[in-house]
């Protein structure tokens, strides 16, 4: 089957996207639609003294101005973090109250205190400016390190010292012993910069309240509409689940930022009930910078010990993670179970200990962003490895090879069990493709042109296919992380796949159809993928953590297994053959080795006519399945960057970039390559361009593209992509996931390459021209002083 697994099928969804026919939340207009605009705190930290909405309410076309007291008075619940992380002393995490509309206390610049509902968007915004809020300013806390300082201003009453939790993993004594026994210890302070996710489509919500039915419909930019419905219903008391339909139509990118339930969706739903009007809110780019959950923002110190041969004897990490002003939906899990559990990297390390403290600051909430915890782990481990290689005078590839895990399954001291991999094979492919042997000659040639050329490695591993429900439940997750699918064969033989995964750029409508086309031997055009609507799709947990292949498609496979079994029963009955002899191939369901066959659609028709089914068989041909993974999956690979630095300006050009990935089975190589390209672009963004900055007063300095540097085409090189496949043994298709790899593996490769070029390890992300030039100046001053 030419459109099956492994085929470069062009994306079915692209016709509507590239012809401008996609239907996004803001494209949806309903009768009686009004518009919301939020009144936001200009201060990063303040008490709300009073809100005077009289001027705004008097404006023609203003329907209502609503505030937090009314919202909580109506029983709308506080926004929660859904993963309970317990401190090492056994105490629960300190979750501060977060109301969708602040009542007495605002904690970051942009915190919403009121909402205006008006007849037009521009009118709503004008009226929002006319709402007069009196604030009493409080001292502001911005920096991660300052949060834990004595005397720091208290952001939430129930989080003394701004500490959310103080958590650990691994064996501290064993790690100390490993370091004590080391012949060499590499020690670094590592900062992981704060990022703004910037999906192309900003967040949007359209809430519709049907008063007669007391039923709500929410169109929203969500990566997981069922989770949104569950949380909106169970925690925010907007409406019971059977009275709430959540639709995430076409969604233009998420990168994690659209997993969470934000104040705006909650407020729109509530306001639609309050005003009797449908309420639409669409963020503009400025509002997105100000309110979309940011990513990363860690400060770590790390020590890695090596024996005389270069084998790692121990790793000890101390990390502080900045959560911003409130705990967003998955925030707690990111610097713990998605980060510290990956600190073993691809290496056989017997002794690891990590301590993680999470803190509040007066900044936008921080949560998962493409990679989510795993980029932080990879960046730390891979910068340590490269730095250690320099300190030990060893080839960085060789030092990694000495320490690579060779046998699987491999249990790490940080609770992961790697199931399959070929780390040397990844390195072989990457080194061959990058021609690392030829690097010295290229470096010399660059030097003749006045350029500093450097090479940097990154051997990343990630835990994807999130996640086994019982395992994450034991670690504090508030949900199960299975996926659900329904496979519906119509009487004419066409197939609809109803999936709980959500596509917001991933190409599910194509890849999911490919596995169905292959399995049932039908044209891919005859397969339709339905997702993103809680009224259509039975249930689902959504798309994040590179889970739609390994978990979402596995659920489809399970449902297809059931369909196939029934198809074979029907065909065996009709063709008077044994079930075991029935095969599906060439568009037919036939008796193997004979010319006795039914066309695929004839089986579908037979199932629905039900004129001649096996005795006791129910009519119809549709099956559902829930798939709960038995383990995480472990994509891994080696990335090699080569850069040239202009020493006069610090400008760095990526002249070569090689990615050798092991994603397990690949359904559509073209789509996988697209995911890797996009991931690398975001990785380059983090490494060289992007960084959120606040001033001391908590005002966002990088609030637009004038100051926040998004990667552009001319910032990026052409990539050389290689694949090395070890099949994942734990899911039916053998898939591992590819959505986050680029964003995880790229930053350390780039920074390792730049630091190699400039001859100093002291360089933080983003390595802007200014930062690289500064590092060069510092290094030359240091050299001169020697």
């Amino acid at each position: 089957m030419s459109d099956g697994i492994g085929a470069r099928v062009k994306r079915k969804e692209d016709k509507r996207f590239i012809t401008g026919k996609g239907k996004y939340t803001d494209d949806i207009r309903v009768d009686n639609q009004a518009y919301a605009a939020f009144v936001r705190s200009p201060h990063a930290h303040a008490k709300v003294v009073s809100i005077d909405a009289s001027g705004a309410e008097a404006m023609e076309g203003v329907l209502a101005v609503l505030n937090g007291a009314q919202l909580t008075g109506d029983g709308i619940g506080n926004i929660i973090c859904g993963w309970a992380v317990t401190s090492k002393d056994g105490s629960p995490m300190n979750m501060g109250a977060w109301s969708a509309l602040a009542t007495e206390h605002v904690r970051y610049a942009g915190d919403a205190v009121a909402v205006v509902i008006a007849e037009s968007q521009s009118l709503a915004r004008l009226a929002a400016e006319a709402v007069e809020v009196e604030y009493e300013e409080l001292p502001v806390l911005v920096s991660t390190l300052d949060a834990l300082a004595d005397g720091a201003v208290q952001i939430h009453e129930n989080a003394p010292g701004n500490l959310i939790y103080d958590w650990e993993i691994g064996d501290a004594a064993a790690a100390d012993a490993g370091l004590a026994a080391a012949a060499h210890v590499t020690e670094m302070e590592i900062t992981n910069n704060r990022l703004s996710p910037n999906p192309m489509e900003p967040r949007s919500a359209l809430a519709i309240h049907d008063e007669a039915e007391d039923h709500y419909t929410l169109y929203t930019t969500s990566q997981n509409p069922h989770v949104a419905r569950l949380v909106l219903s169970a925690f925010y008391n907007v409406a019971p689940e059977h009275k709430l339909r959540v639709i995430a139509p076409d969604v233009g990118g998420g990168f994690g930022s659209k997993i969470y339930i934000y104040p705006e969706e909650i407020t729109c739903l509530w306001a639609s009930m309050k005003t009797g009007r449908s309420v639409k809110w669409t963020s503009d780019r400025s509002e997105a910078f100000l309110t979309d959950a940011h990513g990363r923002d860690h400060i770590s110190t790390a020590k890695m010990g090596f024996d005389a041969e270069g084998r790692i004897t121990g790793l000890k990490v101390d990390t502080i993670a900045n959560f911003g002003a409130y705990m967003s939906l998955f925030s707690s899990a990111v610097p713990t179970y998605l980060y510290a559990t990956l600190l073993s990297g691809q290496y056989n390390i017997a002794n690891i200990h990590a301590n993680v403290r999470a803190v509040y600051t007066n900044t936008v909430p921080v949560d998962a962003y493409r990679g989510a915890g795993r980029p932080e782990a990879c960046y730390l481990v891979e910068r340590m490895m490269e730095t250690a290689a320099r300190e030990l005078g060893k080839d960085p590839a060789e030092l990694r090879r000495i320490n690579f895990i060779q046998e699987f399954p491999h249990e790490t001291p940080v609770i992961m069990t790697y199931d399959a991999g070929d780390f040397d094979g990844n390195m072989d492919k990457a080194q061959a493709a990058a021609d690392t042997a030829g690097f010295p000659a290229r470096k010399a040639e660059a030097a003749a042109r006045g350029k500093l050329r450097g090479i940097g490695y990154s051997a990343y591993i990630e835990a994807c296919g999130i996640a086994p429900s019982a395992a994450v439940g034991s670690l504090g997750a508030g949900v199960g992380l299975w996926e659900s699918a329904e496979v519906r064969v119509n009487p004419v033989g066409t197939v609809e796949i109803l999936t709980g995964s959500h596509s917001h750029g991933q190409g599910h409508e194509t890849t999911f159809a490919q596995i169905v086309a292959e399995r049932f031997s039908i044209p891919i055009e005859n397969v339709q993928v339905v997702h993103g609507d809680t009224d259509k799709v039975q249930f689902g947990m959504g798309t994040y953590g590179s889970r739609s292949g390994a978990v979402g498609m596995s659920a489809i496979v399970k449902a297809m297994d059931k369909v196939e079994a029934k198809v074979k029963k029907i065909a065996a009955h009709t063709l008077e053959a044994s079930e075991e002899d029935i095969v599906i191939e060439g568009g037919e369901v036939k008796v193997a080795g004979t010319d006795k066959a039914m066309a695929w659609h004839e089986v579908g028709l037979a199932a629905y006519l039900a004129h001649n089914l096996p005795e006791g068989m129910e009519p119809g041909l549709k099956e559902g399945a829930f798939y709960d993974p038995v383990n995480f999956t472990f994509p891994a690979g080696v990335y090699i960057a080569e850069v040239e630095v202009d020493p006069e300006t610090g400008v760095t050009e990526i002249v070569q970039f090689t990615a050798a990935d092991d994603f397990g089975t690949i359904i559509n190589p073209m789509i996988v390559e697209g995911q890797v390209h996009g991931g690398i672009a975001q990785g380059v963004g983090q490494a060289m361009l992007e960084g959120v900055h606040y001033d001391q007063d908590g005002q966002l300095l990088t609030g637009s593209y004038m100051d926040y540097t998004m990667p552009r085409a001319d910032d990026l090189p052409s990539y050389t992509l290689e694949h090395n496949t070890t099949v994942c043994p734990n899911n039916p298709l053998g898939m591992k996931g590819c959505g986050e790899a680029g964003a995880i593996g790229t930053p350390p490769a780039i920074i390792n390459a730049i630091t190699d070029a400039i001859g100093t390890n002291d360089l933080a992300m983003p390595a802007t021209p200014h930062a690289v030039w500064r590092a060069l100046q510092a290094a030359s001053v240091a050299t001169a002083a020697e």
Partner: protein
Amino acid sequence: MYQTKYHKPDSLEAAIALLSSSDEAKVLAGGHTLLPTMKNHLAAPSDVVDIRGIANLHGICEDGGSIVIGATTTHAEVADSALVLSACPALACLAAGIGDPAVRHAGTIGGSLANNDPAADYPAAALGLGATIVTSQRELPAEDFFDGMFTTALEDDEIITAIRFPKAEAAGYAKFPNPASRYAMVGVFVAKTSGGVRVAVTGAGEDGVFRHDGLEAALAGEFSPEAAGSVGISPDGLLSDLHGDAEYRANLISVMAKRAVKAVA
């Protein structure tokens, strides 16, 4: 609250009359600064006077030893002009490097100079070439026109009509773009003119575009990249922001000066 009346007069006299008679009018020549500022509610002019319908404010011609560019001539028109390309390729190159194609086809030279953004390119060319700014009232040498960040000598009811660039013996421009905005973080325009070597720096100064005496003196002695590179650049009076501090900008002035001189050759 943000009501604005839009006008599109077809004569300079009508435009000036509108400016004189309204409370707080703004001239629209391309709109790349004005319109975003209005959209963000940071400006709320009572009237917007669009001067792009005035015929004699537009176009490029030669007048004796000068190139005269009408105020509403777009960056793309300057970049593509055969006259500019032959008489002052550095000016065409500068125009070709402003913003992106959409910006270059709407933004105008008069709009850019009247706005005097400290990171804009054209002020460097005007000051570096010793241009004359021709307005509805008078003619101003570039030195007298620029008056600090976003400030010029223009009166409220005064409109730039044209810019007269004297032909230089040689000229070059080198820009270091801000990684985010791609505006000039530092742009250096060097020119050998009848009045001597002139070096104008944009993007770096706390008071906007300025001439650099040290670079001018060195290049007057020997017009070479090495001579430019030998000049120590003081960070005093230079901008510091999250994209680069004053010392980095000082370094970039040195590097861009060298590259601008190199571009001449």
